């Protein structure tokens, strides 16, 4: 149980380190994606600690898992992909403007333009 959480935590950490440390802006967006999936995994994993059946009521269903985190994560996944799309569009725009994907080069070129 603790091992699973630590693995998820490592996934989040890997994602966050890419956001902070990667030079390539598309890799930064990858990192954001990973960070998001780590949190989704955490919610779903912990939400299924109670109960044994999928939360679809029907004949013989008595012991369902907690459906609240699942519903929350549907929203979170969608918001995550929206932000990803926007970030990538911005990244493409930055590339077209500066001809580079490295964050430092982009920033330097934009500021020298001023």
């Amino acid at each position, binding site marked *: 149980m603790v091992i699973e959480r630590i*693995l998820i935590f490592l*996934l989040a950490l890997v994602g966050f380190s890419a956001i902070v440390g990667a030079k*390539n802006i*598309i890799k930064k967006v*990858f990192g954001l994606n990973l960070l998001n999936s780590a949190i989704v*995994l955490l919610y779903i994993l912990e*939400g299924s600690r109670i109960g044994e059946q999928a939360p679809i009521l029907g004949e013989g269903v008595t012991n369902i898992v907690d459906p609240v985190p699942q519903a929350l994560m549907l929203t979170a996944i969608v918001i995550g992909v929206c932000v990803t799309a926007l970030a990538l569009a911005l990244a*493409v725009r930055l590339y077209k403007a500066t001809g580079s*994907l490295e964050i430092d080069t982009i920033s330097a070129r934009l500021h020298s333009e001023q």
Partner: protein
Amino acid sequence: MTILLLFLILSLGSFALLSKDLLHSVIALSALSMLSALMFTMLKAPDVAITEAAVGAGISTIIFVWAIRHTRRRSKD
């Protein structure tokens, strides 16, 4: 079993960030999404699994591929 899947997910994620070819990273990420969808079904969350499969392996991949086609495939780090 979940531990194994999580381990795979973690290594795919690390691969996506370490690979110098961004297209490989995208494929790794979409595989990661499929694995998490598998994990969600095992964890009794079919709704989330469908969403993750449709969104993570579907739309995100399309957008990522689009972005990479418009920019450069190689990454320096």
